[in-house]
């Protein structure tokens, strides 16, 4: 068996349809909750506690804590609501010529990145991402603004397969 053959992924995973529409791993929702929700909770807590202390020292208007509670609550609410929707709307397709991404909740985006235009392909795995066994694929095109395109929430095996396949399709040396 050709070790570079991506159509036969290791670990007995089912073969993936090439060029077909794919979704992210379902556990990315849990990952987003673990990171974004935690971040929002900490931020909201800091906001509320800070304003409470500020009020205790006799400063600020009486409605300040109310505003802080509402703002903190909204922050947490958004972090609670967003991940399932983000997951539900994420789709991507890869073949030898094109990487296309579709995502977004309020603002829908559809991006097409020609594979031969990719400058380099990165695999990012943060510490919490690693706990969940997830990886983010980042492809860069030439240019400075908006030249990085990322696909989050891939299983490590799939991400590596995608990277290898893109690199193979792109050829060895492109400017």
């Amino acid at each position, binding site marked *: 068996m050709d070790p570079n053959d991506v159509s036969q992924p290791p670990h007995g995973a089912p073969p993936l349809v090439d060029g077909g529409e794919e979704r992210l791993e379902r556990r990315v929702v849990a990952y987003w909750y673990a990171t974004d929700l935690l971040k929002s909770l900490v931020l909201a807590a800091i906001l509320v506690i800070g304003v409470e202390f500020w009020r205790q020292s006799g400063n600020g208007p009486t409605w300040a804590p109310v505003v802080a509670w509402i703002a903190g609550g909204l922050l947490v609410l958004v972090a609670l609501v967003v991940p399932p929707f983000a997951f539900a709307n994420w789709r991507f397709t890869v073949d030898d010529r094109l990487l296309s991404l579709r995502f977004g909740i309020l603002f829908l985006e*559809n*991006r097409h*990145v020609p594979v*031969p*235009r990719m400058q380099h392909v990165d695999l990012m795995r943060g510490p919490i991402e690693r706990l969940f066994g997830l990886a983010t694929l980042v492809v860069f095109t030439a*240019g400075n*603004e908006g*030249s990085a395109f990322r696909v989050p929430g891939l299983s490590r095996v799939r991400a590596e397969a995608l990277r290898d396949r893109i690199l193979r399709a792109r050829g060895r040396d492109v*400017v």
Partner: protein
Amino acid sequence: MSSELPAVAAASPSEGAVLLRGHLHPAVLLLSLIGGLRSAAFPCLLGLVADRMFLILGGVLFLVQVGTGLVRYLTFHYVLTEDELRTREGVLHRQERRIPIDRIQDLGFESTILRRILGLTVVRVETASGQGVEAVLDSLGRGESENLREVLLRLRVRVARGVENAGVSPADGSFPPPPSAAPDPEWTIYRASPGMLLLRGLTDLRIGAVLVAAFGAYEVADRLGVLTQIRGVGATFYDWLRGFPIMLAAGMLLGLVFGVLALSVAFAAVGNLMAFHGFHLSLRADSLLCRFGLLTTRQKTLPRQRVQRVRVEQTWLRRLLGVAVARADSAGSGRGTGEEAPGGFDVVIPLAELAGIEALLPAVLPGLEQSSTQVSRASRMLVWRVFLRSCMDIAVLIAVLLPFAHEAAWFGLLLVPFAWLLGRLYWQGLAYGLWQHHVYLRWGVLGSYQVLLPTAKVQAVALMRGPLQRLLGLSELRIFVAGGPPTRIPDLAKAEAEALLAALSARATIAAADEWNERRVGFHPGPA
């Protein structure tokens, strides 16, 4: 220039043969000496007047500047081989840079008045790295830098020809001999007339910016209560003015206002005349050459196939007069939206009649002459989107003003017709076209801005749809190129936008694949 040619011809065919090598010009030392004196002058003055400690500070500043200049002069070293430009500098922190020849996007020469007196030129090497200038050789002798550019240009042409003719990659060492001893002929594309440059200065809207800023300053002064003091000064001035007959006083006031205006216009005009003095755009062996400047002279070469995007811009004043500015973005030259390249390095035509610029464009963007120039209009729903968006803004404005201005805030409703007008103008200004080798886009409410970008340079394409756009069935198309921010075509009908997205990404993929084939095996499919 023929004296330099043996250096190229004599280069051994082995890979990476050294063509040129050199150091900085010794006069750089004088430059750092002057720089040191300049930075030490102020502390020394302070030292003489106030505290002796400042003298020490001045001395340290002077020594540091001269020292770094000396170290840089002694250690800086560049080598041009057949496939790369290497620079090296530094003692403790040694830095070596290697820039492959075919990645060099743009070569810029700049020399300030001081450097010109000393016969020096700063060479700026731009690549597609996104930082713009990759290496700065500050400074070389004028002859040396000309020579460097000559050899570079020749190398680039040779790489291109080697691929096309022989079908062998130049790295194999089978370079064809230089085609002729004489340098390639130079074709003048455009030469700026002093009148046009003057007009450029006169229509520089920074005058408008000055007026706006003055108005803003007045507002701020009003808020801070400084105005009463200004009024006090004004009252004295008024009393003084009252001493004159009324006609004379009015005349003096008018004269003052006009004087300030004329001064700012004159500043803009002189600035433009000096910056773009003797602007000359020419074409040589498929590279664009620009030369301009009175005190600080600038030169740049931009290979035509590296042009990522050409912009033809008319601010409202220039649109009234039917004149426009043309700029070319190369990869890596990208700056944020609305920012100008420092020193006007991206200007291709400082100012000319719009028809004239349109006639010249094929010289900058090859392939444009044979393509159709058909444009399509955006969806009419765009008028609604702009109108609704503006109405939302007006609603917010009224809501914010209501606690302060009470009933008067409802006068904000008078803005609603203008929101519709804005939508209409926006729709009228917007047009786009997918031509044979280029994407065309025109937009603008008062001014008119046109963008042309080769489809082969497209890096990525994206569609965006916000909530309001989804409601109206609209989509925004974003085209990413290697230079500058993405080009946006707002508010296309959804089906049209999706067709464009597919067409553009397909073309970009094919172009990229062709480019890649060309590089690897010398396979050249020819223009599609």
